[in-house]
């Protein structure tokens, strides 16, 4: 009798679920996702919801930056485009916010493709500069569209087919559904020939063009997908918020998103992004709630926001130095250790 897991087709060997442990993990994840509202109180549930929203955004950025190697500092602005699309579609057109989410994705995608044009000529720092300009330009546009820094998202637009997304539990389930769907899509793109083309462009774009990869098209595609994810995340953020202000989509947020990609694992589109969000966003929020009383006891409340960037900066720098492949690589080493246990190799 054969011992172990054997595959008889390449299709089976290329599936997401290849080993019994995958199936077990999937079931555990589904139960955890479904049971979260029952276990978590309102505060933690909203933390989970924002984590899922940012997961979507970071997956998109991870495709642009991690997979295709095209640095973008305009990702938060693209989220803003998505958020304002949903808010304005609901306010002015009376469109349902849920139905406006795909529209938000497409709008941000269109703008992201425009932003990809400099990438045909520019690389690395120069491309980062170009995207920085785009971020500031979009911020300026937001400040003209939304001078009061407050655009309400009408609550009546958040009800679709009897499901009221003003209810945090419903909103959580909706966000989780969208996030999981986007994660599956991201994983599929990463393992497809398009994903390989992006990796080839990242590693060596001249060689990529020699082996038959259309480099400009691949870059545009990476920006388009990244933009779509940012737009959807922004749209979800608008549904999550009572009202949106553009201070949520500034340059510093773009840099934080980039930090999440670097810390989680660049190129590890799904799980790396999730780890990045859990560390830098959720992790920080939890830490902050512990630190705030401490800081106020020390009379340092005024420095609270500076403190945030000192800690985040230190975490990002430490990750880049100690584990350039991100925290996901640490997890993989742990997995490898237990796979071989009790032997060392």
């Amino acid at each position: 009798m054969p011992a172990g897991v054997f595959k008889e087709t390449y299709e089976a060997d290329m599936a997401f679920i290849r080993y019994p442990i995958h199936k077990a993990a999937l079931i555990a994840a589904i139960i955890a996702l479904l049971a979260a509202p029952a276990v978590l109180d309102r505060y933690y549930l909203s933390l989970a919801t924002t984590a899922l929203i940012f997961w979507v955004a970071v997956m998109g950025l991870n495709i642009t930056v991690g997979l295709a190697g095209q640095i973008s500092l305009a990702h938060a602005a693209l989220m803003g485009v998505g958020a304002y699309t949903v808010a304005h579609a609901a306010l002015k057109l009376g469109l349902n916010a849920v139905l406006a989410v795909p529209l938000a994705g497409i709008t941000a995608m269109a703008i992201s493709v425009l932003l990809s044009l400099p990438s045909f000529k520019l690389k690395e720092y120069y491309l980062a500069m170009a995207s920085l300009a785009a971020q500031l330009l979009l911020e300026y546009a937001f400040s003209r569209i939304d001078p009061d820094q407050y655009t309400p998202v009408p609550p009546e637009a958040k009800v679709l087919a009897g499901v009221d997304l003003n209810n945090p539990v419903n909103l959580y389930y909706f966000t989780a559904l969208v996030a999981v769907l986007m994660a599956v899509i991201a994983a599929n793109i990463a393992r497809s020939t398009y994903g390989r083309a992006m990796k080839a462009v990242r590693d060596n774009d001249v060689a990529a063009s020699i082996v038959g990869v259309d480099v400009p098209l691949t870059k545009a595609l990476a920006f388009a997908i990244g933009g779509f994810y940012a737009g959807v995340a922004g749209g979800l953020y608008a549904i999550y918020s009572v009202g949106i202000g553009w201070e949520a989509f500034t340059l510093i947020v773009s840099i934080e998103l980039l930090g999440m990609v670097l810390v989680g694992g660049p190129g590890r589109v799904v799980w790396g992004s999730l780890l990045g969000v859990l560390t830098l966003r959720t992790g920080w929020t939890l830490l902050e709630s512990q630190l705030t009383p401490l800081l106020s006891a020390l009379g340092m409340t005024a420095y609270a926001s500076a403190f945030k960037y000192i800690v985040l900066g230190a975490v990002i720098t430490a990750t880049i130095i100690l584990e350039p492949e991100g925290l996901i690589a640490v997890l993989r080493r742990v997995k490898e250790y237990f796979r071989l246990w009790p032997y060392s190799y």
Partner: protein
Amino acid sequence: MQNSSSVIGEAKVDGVWDTSSLYMKKYGAGERILWTVDVTLSFGGVRALDRVSIVVRKGELLGLIGPNGAGKTSLLNVISGVYKPEKGRVFFKGIDISNLKPHERARLGIARTFQHGEMFHSMTVLETIMLRLHPWHRGSIVEAALWAFRAKRWEVEAREKAEYVIDLLDLHEYRHMPVGALPPGVQKKVDLAAAMVQDPEVILMDEPMAGLSREEKDDIVRAIIEIRETRGTTMVLVEHDLEVVTDICDRVVVMDRGKVIFDGPPHEAVKDEAVITAYIGG
């Protein structure tokens, strides 16, 4: 005296350079599959290739040798479409491919390996090999995103082709390892496998043995012989190592300073005065 570099390619038929008649005279019958006519290429003031005309016969293993800077790699780059020559043309199976892009030439059946095996250092062996099938890919990005229909069928098909060459070149254990983490000998084998996955009629190998140890060289030689025996692929081998070339090649073309200085059987090449002078320096 007539320079021996232009023995082939001197005949002008109807105003077009044609090598066929002289080729036939020199080598007799035998189908030519790939040939260049008077290829000239300069970098700035340096003439890398000077009216180079070579012929590759179907099924043969042609060694392309010469000292550093002789223009071997440049010629390979012209044939595979990386460089566009100033003058001259490249033909493949009777078709003028001079104006085609590298991947269009790949689609016609010309594959190549690279001097630096570690081209996509963070990609795994399997990904590197499957990447080379990208010009043939089917299925839109939407199908790929859903892992469905044509995209899924194509991925499975590509995987099957990749596994065939992994099996052929014995790369099983490295399948999921990033190419950058592999020893140079294995990287070169991966590169060879990546070229083979395109199921080419001609494979151009750019110094597949440069910088390798004796054992690694033997491994590559075995792989080359294995491919010839199982697939009958026509091969052009750019190499420094004269010993390897004389051992396995059917014919050699020796280049020096952008010109062809010898074209014939390997055992004659090592005795040829012009070749010896070029190698030793004179």
